[in-house]
Every structure is written in C-alpha cells, then in structure tokens.
C-alpha cells in the first residue's frame, strides 16, 4: 500500500487513512467513457446537411440525402449527430462544430439550437450558422469544401466534407482509427475503478502526478471515495509542516546581523528574505504529501489570487498568504475573498494596506474585480460572453465602480501593535489587516450592478468592517462568479478550452452545492473532476487538453519514478524550483499580478486557446527538452562545496524498468510500461517504433541507459507534454 521508500511519517499517515476508508467499494463510479459522436453521412465522406429555413424536423425529412448541396456564408444549416446520449443538463452548448479550410485554418461555427429527430431514434439535429465565432481568422471564404467535425465531452466525431460556396478543393484524409479501441491493460480483476486510462488521467488532474500507490488506491476505492478522503486529509503532511519563520525587519542587514558574504549571512538571507524555503516546502509537499488535491487546488488558486516574491519580501509573508489559499481551497469562495482581501501579502502586493481616504490607491479595487472575481465582461452561465447592441460585449463595471470600491478598501492597515504576531521592528505580515476607521472613506458608495444586485448601494458613515462585508457580498453574488472561477479552475486542472456546457455545469455547482449554498469549493472541485468531459480513458477531440505547466511537468516525472534524494536513502530536499524556472515558470515569483500566463492566451498563427502556451516559445521549448534530459538521465546531486546545511538532491528510480528490459531485451516491455504509466496507453505505433529504434544501438547490457532513453523520448515529446 505504501512505498517502503517513503519517509516514515508520511507512510504512517497513508497507512492510517487506508485503515479507515480502505474497504469502501467503488460501485458509485459509473463507466466514465462517453461514446464518440457520429456525424451522419450523406454521400460518401459528405455530411448530411440541410438548410434551416424550415422548422428542424420538417427540414430533416427534406435533408440533403445526396450531400452535394453547397451552402453560403452566414447561412443557417442543420447537421445530424448520433451516439450522443445527452444527460438532462446537456443542451446545444454541449457540442462544438469545427471546420477546417484548404488553408488549414480552423473555424468554429455557433450552434443556435438542438432538437431530437424523433423520440425513438437517438439522432440530434444541430442548427448551426456558417459564421466563425472564434474571430482569429477572417471569415472562411465560400471557395470549396470545408472539413467539419463535431466534438462532445472531449470526444471527436468522424470528419466529413461540407460544400461551402462550391464543392471540391480540399484534400480529404480518411479519418484514422480512433485510439479508444486499444486495450488499456485491464486485468481480470474487475473490482473497483478498473478504467486504467481514466485513473491516470484523473490523477494527472487532481494531483501533482500519478504514483503506483495512488493508482492502486483509486482503483480500490474509486474516484468519489478518494475525493471524499482528500477533502478531509490533513494538510500539510505531518512530515512537512509549513515552515514557521519569525517576521524580520525590512532591512536585510538588520534582520541578518552577520558580516555580508559570510555563510551565516547568506543562509539567513536565503531563509528569511527569499522564497527559497517556500519553494522547497512546496515541492516536498507535491512529491510526498497525502493531501494532493488540496495542494493542487491551492497551487491553482495561487495563480488566480497572484502575489509574487518579486515584491513580497519574506518567506514568512508568503507562507501566511499560502495558508489562506489552502485553508479555503475546500471552503467557501466568499471566505477566501475576505481572508485574501485582508491578507497582508496581498495588501502589500496590490497596495490596499497603504490606501487611505485621503491617499486612495485603486490597485486592489481594480484587480479584485478584473482578475479575481467577476472579470471585465458580463458572462452567460456557460462562460460565453453576453453581447449587447451590435454584438459588443457588455462591460461588468466602469471606472466609476472602481473608484467606489477603492473607497471601500481604504483604511485597512498592517496590525503592527496588539495582534498575536505583532513584532517590534517588523511589519506584521501574519495577522490580517485591521481597520483604522479614521482613515476609512465613509462616503456612500455605488457598487456592482446586476440583476437582483446585492448591496448595490452602501450608505454613508458605516463602519469599515461592516462595509467590507457588504461590498464583498456585492461581488460574491454577481452572476459572473460561477463561470469565471469555474472556467479558470477547469483550465488549470483539466483542459484549456472547455465546452460551454462543462463550464455551465461547474458554474451551477458554484451557484448551488445542492444544499442551497453558493461558493462551496468542494462542490466546484468535485463537479470539475467528475464531469463527463473530464472523465474517460481517452479523449479524441483535437481541441482537448492542455500544455503541462513547467511545475506539473517536473512533479509528474519525479512522482512517476519514485523521487528520493540523490543517494536514494531519504526523501528529496525538494530543491527543484530551478527546473520550472528555466522553463519559464519561477514558482512564487510570477512577473506580474497576471500570473505566469493569462487565461485567454491564443497561440500565434492558430486559433487555439491555450493559457500555458504563454510561456511556451522557442527558448522555453528547448529548456523543456533540456530539463527533461536532466530529469531522465541525471541525479541532482547535493552540492559538495556547500557551507550551509547541504541539500540532499533528487533522483528517480527506474529499477523496475531495468528489470523489464533485462527480461525482454527487445525493449517492447519497457515501452509498453512507460506508455501505460505516462501516456495511459495512447502511444501511436509510429512513436513506439521511433523509440525502439533509438534504443537499438545501445549496448545490450546497458539496460539503465536504454530505459532512460525511452523515458526521455516520451517525456520530451509533445504527445506527453500535452496533458489530455
């Protein structure tokens, strides 16, 4: 059940949890696999389609049985889709229709409506408009066939031609056999959550990387029980508590009263005045912690409510901030909003702690609205933009609103006297900011307006704390919150461009956890991870997936191969921050409040929504390859010349694969096992052949090098680096 190489305390906790909940069976988890939608075919390779000028069902009978009709720009037409058993909460926005033209440009056509062809047949009629809704390219030209494809729950349909202006002009590649019919390596034992591909995928989404032990555990207890267990798991691990450092004076030389340049001085500065210990703690928890899901969600939230070590001076400051994130990762979003607003690191980073009625600073007011809660534009519940006159998006608020919130957030100060952690000579970054009413702007305020707005108007002369709660309630009840927060977390855990239906289901869980409570993060996380668009052994939609951010790439590889110290006698020291840093993601040192990358980043030259590609460029692409080389081939040694407590380094273990290699010198067993472990058995035959060819020239007896070569080739591949 637990690895003999785990630190003892961690292993004991794992064991205790196992005792308490380990014998629950997994009946509650349904088959996670959604079928692939089928786009009905008229004549060979052509979509069955009809103009939508009649009612849907009437038009269906007149559908273009020959399939050779051509359609024109902006025309509304009907397409027919089968094999998509919709659940009650699924509607038109569960589907997406993509089209590719002769220039290989990709467009997406809006779906205006959906209807069932008849009660008996499981065929749905999609009414679409032949008008690109992404807006990256100019509208497609009616100069020949488009290749169209429908996706649903991350599953792609067959591809068919559709005449646009005229037919022809497109080289048509017959669709390949989908990968979902491969044998995914089930054993005969059908007890538990036996979907081996989906188990790995689930763990990639919910943790910092699958391990053998976790895979076994999820197999045994199923997803729902595992989630329940995670919601209650102690955090951080007993073996890896939050570092607890005293608050230091702002001047380093005062806080570290040693001669500059001496080992004592350097170690003191590193410990207290950089985020070095926070990063190392973070990676140790990611490597070994039991409360993986809380750690993962807190990490995602740290990329929403961003602060940065570029401004936040001391490790103790960042730790107090991180405690707020982890405390509310499974709490209520409203509580997160309040504790983060009063968190001193945030108050410093976005200037609220210095904003007073006579010298107001609008930084926090602007960013809490724009970045942390409601965003710039009014959203539908499925995350799509509401539009007003002329199709323009509708701003959520104005500069005037920002001015009014700025007044709300005045007068909150560091608690340097009289709070539990108040320290002479240091600013109190541990206890929440406290109101100094005489510095608070007590004029009346007008806040966010929305249907049934809560606390839109705040009366004059209220106490600042009362007003803060009223104002946060005004934000919290804005209808944008569910889709805004839901989409963000889906992007961080599951996929970069979720379907509107997926966002809508998660937003619904945010709006109401089933017991009438809004903002329950457990309900949100559960909805994200158990959604049919998240679940399944294989996702075939070409628009599904996300680039593994550098932190995830690093932790996934180390966790998959039982990371320990360089000499493999003890746990890793967690000093691996420099790997993601070189790949463009310096943990806890984001460049700006906009995080390492923005949620709306589009890959240049494509129409692909892909936040993590914001830090994927020629330079970081090579670094991703290089860091994979380091992780695959090299132990990260402790520094022999260090004059402070020496880190013990990190290394992976591939002994089980070496064993496989010696049993099967062809390399097939090694590649199979790596395919199962890293790619949930989706490796193409061509890729597999490439790897075997690269292993061939290596000396027969050098199983270690063969295995690591295969590992490098998979870990450095885009096929692996895209989590999907």
């Amino acid at each position, binding site marked *: 059940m637990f690895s003999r190489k785990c630190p003892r305390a961690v292993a004991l906790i794992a064991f205790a949890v196992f005792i308490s909940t380990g014998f629950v069976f997994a009946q509650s988890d349904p088959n996670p696999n959604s079928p692939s939608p089928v786009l009905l075919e008229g004549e060979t390779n052509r979509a069955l389609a009809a103009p939508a000028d009649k009612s849907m069902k009437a038009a269906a009978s007149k559908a273009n049985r020959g399939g050779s009709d051509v359609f024109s720009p902006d025309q509304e037409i009907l397409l027919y889709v089968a094999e998509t058993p919709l659940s009650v909460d699924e509607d038109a926005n569960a589907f997406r229709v993509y089209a590719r033209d002769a220039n290989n440009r990709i467009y997406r056509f809006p779906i205006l409506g959906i209807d069932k062809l008849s009660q008996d047949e499981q065929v749905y009629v999609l009414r679409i408009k032949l008008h690109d809704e992404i807006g990256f390219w100019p509208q497609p030209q009616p100069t020949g066939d488009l290749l169209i494809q429908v996706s649903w729950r991350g599953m792609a349909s067959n591809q068919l031609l559709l005449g646009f202006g005229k037919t022809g002009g497109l080289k048509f590649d017959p669709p390949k056999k989908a990968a979902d019919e491969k044998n995914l390596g089930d054993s005969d034992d059908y007890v538990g959550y036996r979907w081996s591909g989906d188990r790995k995928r689930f763990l990639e989404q919910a943790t910092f990387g699958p391990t053998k032990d976790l895979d076994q555990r999820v197999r045994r207890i199923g997803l729902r029980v595992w989630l329940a267990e995670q919601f209650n798991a102690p955090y951080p691990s007993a073996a890896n508590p939050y570092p607890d450092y005293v608050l230091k004076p702002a001047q380093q030389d005062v806080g570290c009263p040693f001669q500059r340049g001496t080992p004592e001085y350097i170690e003191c500065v590193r410990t207290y005045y*950089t985020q*070095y210990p926070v990063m190392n703690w973070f990676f140790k928890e990611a490597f070994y912690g039991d409360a993986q899901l809380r750690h993962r969600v807190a990490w995602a939230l740290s990329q929403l409510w961003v602060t940065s070590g*570029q401004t936040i001076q001391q490790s103790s400051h960042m730790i107090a901030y991180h405690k707020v994130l982890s405390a509310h990762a499974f709490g209520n979003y409203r509580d997160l909003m309040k504790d983060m607003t009063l968190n001193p690191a945030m108050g410093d980073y*976005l200037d609220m702690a210095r*904003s*007073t009625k006579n*010298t107001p600073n609008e*930084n926090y007011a*602007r960013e809490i609205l*724009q970045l942390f809660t409601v965003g*710039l534009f009014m959203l539908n519940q499925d995350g799509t933009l509401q539009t007003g006159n002329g199709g323009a998006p509708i701003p959520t608020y104005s500069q005037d609103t920002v*001015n009014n919130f700025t007044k709300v957030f005045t007068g909150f100060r560091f608690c340097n006297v009289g709070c539990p952690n108040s320290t002479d000579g240091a600013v109190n970054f541990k206890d929440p900011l406290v109101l100094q009413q005489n510095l608070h702007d007590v004029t009346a305020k007008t806040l966010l307006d929305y249907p049934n707005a809560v606390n839109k108007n705040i009366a004059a002369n209220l106490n600042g704390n009362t007003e803060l709660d009223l104002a946060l309630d005004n934000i919290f009840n804005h209808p944008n919150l569910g889709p805004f927060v839901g989409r963000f977390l889906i992007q961080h855990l599951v996929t*970069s461009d979720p379907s509107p239906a997926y966002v809508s289901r998660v937003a619904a869980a945010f709006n109401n956890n089933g017991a009438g409570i809004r903002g329950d993060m457990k309900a949100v996380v559960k909805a994200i991870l158990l959604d049919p668009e998240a679940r399944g052994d294989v996702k075939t939609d070409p628009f*599904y*997936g*996300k680039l593994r951010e550098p932190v995830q790439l690093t932790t996934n590889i180390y966790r998959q191969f039982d990371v320990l110290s360089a000499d493999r006698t003890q746990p890793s020291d967690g000093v691996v921050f420099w790997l993601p840093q070189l790949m463009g993601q*310096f943990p806890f*040192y984001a*460049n*700006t409040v*906009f995080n390492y*990358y*923005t949620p709306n*980043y589009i890959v*240049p030259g494509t129409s*692909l929504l892909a936040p993590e*590609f914001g*830090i*994927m*460029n*020629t*330079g970081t*692409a*090579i670094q991703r*390859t*290089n860091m994979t*080389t380091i992780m695959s*081939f*090299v*132990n*990260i040694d*402790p*520094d*022999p*010349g260090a004059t*402070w407590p020496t880190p013990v380094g990190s290394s992976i273990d591939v002994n089980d694969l070496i064993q496989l290699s010696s049993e099967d010198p062809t390399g097939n067993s090694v590649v199979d096992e790596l395919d199962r472990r890293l790619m949930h058995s989706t490796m*193409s035959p*061509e*890729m597999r052949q*490439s*790897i075997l060819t*690269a292993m061939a020239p*290596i000396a027969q007896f050098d199983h270690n090098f063969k295995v690591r*070569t295969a590992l*490098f080739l998979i870990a*450095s591949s*885009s*096929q692996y680096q*895209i989590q*999907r």
Partner: protein
Amino acid sequence: MKESRRDFVKKAGCALGMAGLATQFVHFGRMSVLAQRSRDAAKKQGSLGTTGYKAIVCVFLGGGNDGNNTLVPLHTDSGISNYNDYAAARSAAGLALAQGSLLPISVPAMGNLSYGMHPAFGQQTNGNAGIHPLWATGKLAWVTNVGTLVSPMTKAQYQNNSIAKPSQLFSHLDQVNQYQAGRSDTFSFSGWGGRLSDDMNQSSNPGGLIPMVTSIDGAALFTAGQTTQPMAIDDSSTPLNEVLNPIGFGNDSWSQARLAAFNQIRSLDLNNNYVNAASNVTEAAMQANEALSTFQEVTVGFPNTGIGRQLKQVARLIKKQADLNVERQVFYTERGGFDTHNGQLNAQNNNLAQVSQAVRAFYDEMVVQGRESEVTVFMMTDFGRTMNPAGSGGNVGSDHGWGNHMFVLGGAVNGGDFYGVDTSNGTPFPNLTIDGPDDATSNAANARGRWIPTTGVEQYAATIARWFGLPEADIPLVFPNIGAFSTSNLGFMG
C-alpha cells in the same frame, strides 16, 4: 524586482549541485555537427550584403511608466503649464522632482522652452552614460501625449460618450494589448511587430534562417503575427550558440539515434491541435538553433541588468545579421516594475536608469557596428499615470493614467524635438492642470489628471513602420484603424 535565475541563485547562495550536473554532462557534448553542416550549406548559397538592413527594437516599460515625471516643464513661462504648475500638483504628496535635478533640454516645438528629462537619463554614479546627451546630438526624440484611441477625442466627447473609447481604459492587460496590437478599435489577437512580419518577411527576408521577429522577453502580443511566429530566446547571460541548443546530444551513435527519434517524434500524432502547436514551437527552435551555432561577441560593455542583457543579445544578433540572411528584423525587449502605485521615487529612478544605460550601451554598440542609422530603438508602455499622486511620503506613487511620452532613438531619428499631435494648448505637450482641458476625468473628487492622448498609438507605430520599409499601401493592413487619424507620419523618422 525581476531577477534572472543566476541573480537569484547568487543572492540566495544556493548552489543546486550544478557543478555536479556539469560533470555528468561531460560525455554528452553538443549537437554541433548538424549545426555546422547547415551553416556551411547556408554559406555556400552566398550571404547577402548588408545594404539596406534595418531593424527596430521595442523597449517596453512594463507596468506603465509615469510620463509626468519623465518629461517635466522646467520653464516658468506663465502662458503654458510650467514647473510651478507641475510642482503644485505633486509636491505636497512628495512626488515632485526637484527643479535642479532635472536634465534640461531645449525644445524647438515648444518655442525653445526648457523641459527636463528625469535625472535617471543622465550619467549615473556607476559611471555609465545615459541617453540624455543624445538629445543634443539629434539622435533622441520624444513623441508626446501618445495613447490608445479609437479616434481622436476631446474632453467633452470623452465625458458625453459621443465617441467610442478604447475598451477598458486604465486596465493593464487591455491597454498593453492595445499598445502592442497597434489598434484600439477592437480586440486583437496579433501585434503590430508580428503583422509587420506577416506582411514583409517573405519579400524582405527570402531565405532568412530565423524569423523576422525576435523576443528576448518571452511571449508578447507585439511579436505575434497572424501567420508568423516569433523566435524567443534568453538574454545574453546565455551565449547565442547555446540559447536554443538542446543539451545531452553528442556525436556517439546512441546520441544520434536519440536525436533522430526526438526529431521524428515531433512530426507524429499532430491530430491533436495542442500537440501540433507544441511540436511546431520546438521545430522552430531546432531550426533556429542550427542558424545560431556561432556568433561574435559585441564590442561595447553592456550593464549587467535584465534590460542590459536583453539589448546585448539583440546586438549580438544584429552583428550576425549577414549570416542569418535577414534584411529586416524586429526585436522586443522589456523592463518591468513601472507599475509604481507606491514607492515610485526610488523605483522609477532605478528602472529608468537601467533602461537609459542599457539603451545607451546599445546605441554605442550600433555606432561601433556602423549601424546606428539602420537601427531604431523605440519605447512603449502600458499607459501614463495619474498626475495626482497615490499615497504620500515615502510610499508615494501614482495610479493608472492614459496619455504618455515615448522616446525614439537612433541615427535615423530626427532627434532633439517633441513630436505628436497638438493638445488643447496648441503644442504637443499637454496642459498639466488636473480637471483641466486635457484631463479626461473631472469633478473635483474624481479628477486625477489622466491626459486624453492626442497622438494615437498607431500613428506613432506607423511612422516607425514606414521607415522600416512597410509599403505605403500596406500601412492600413498592418494598422487597420489608421484611417481614423489625421496622419500616419508624425515626422520623427528621417
């Protein structure tokens, strides 16, 4: 403050066992054979001459530089905003710069009145020269009151909403997007540097071995075209021949087999669009790596700052221009930290000093390379900042504003003057009165001194792009909203 990893490591004193890593890599060597081969092939094709080479270098001041402390009236002429007006707005809170500290420039467009550049533009105590002296030699110009606009607008039009405003004024992300896109009439997925490449790369750089656009600061909308992608590389702390070089591949047979597989796998399984996009980026990197296998070091010493190292890397690439077979290049560099809501006096001084010294070193290097008239450096930033300070005393700063001043520098610049469309006072420099005719905001409580720009970003950009060689007929393609403005040539380029 943004630090490179090396800085961090140095400061933090953590050695990470890199020495150990290095020794384990001894047997790997580099992928030099392929690179050498391709370079030889390129040489055989014959290198192009350097006649007609041109490059533009964007220095982006991330966060929104406070233009009100960057260019300050030094004169006391009562007919126009003068030093006393400036001091009245800013000194009580402690944000006004002392009159005697400002670096004087005489401005023909302002009737030869005296203005002051921020003291950070002068020679610094570390001995490094700044860009202020280049004003007198005619190599430095300021384009004043630039900003995002859908079309020119007056205060009345701003207040009665009779003309469309740029979306989300005063918001970082949106205003950066619009500056870098070179348009504010709609959201843009591409930047004007990238669109220059879309338009000109094939005709100007046939057979170019690297993309037309290079970023030394990661992804920036400015560098993204609709059909072309930029190269992005690290700063000069990594030598040019290592900046895109994958480690661990030697000449031994198993390394070559591994490299072959690595290259082949990148061409497979492209059905998923994310896999395809990631493989495309890696492919571009591997191609560029072959072109960058050798380089010559620059002559001038650059300051060892982030922006210094970035501009040094640009200078290395320009020195290698003939090898790379490119006649037109666009570069992007960035110095962050200008979002000075607090602590502005120190922060802006340090930041501008770093920018000034780095740009000066770059200019001096271009002189050494004989390219000072072929390379133009220009500044952009998020927006201006409020004239009315935020906070006071040691923490004083300023909030997000609008119109701002941009420097342009190089041998081809008609330097020593202000350029731009006239403001309410009939000159290119705005009236500095809070709630005055150039302040977008009004009514005493909310007026903060956010200048309504008179010069659109696209006018500023199009003037540079025309000099760069963008055909007149293509100006509306790269700057689709240029028609909303009176002119696409502000006259600051020769």
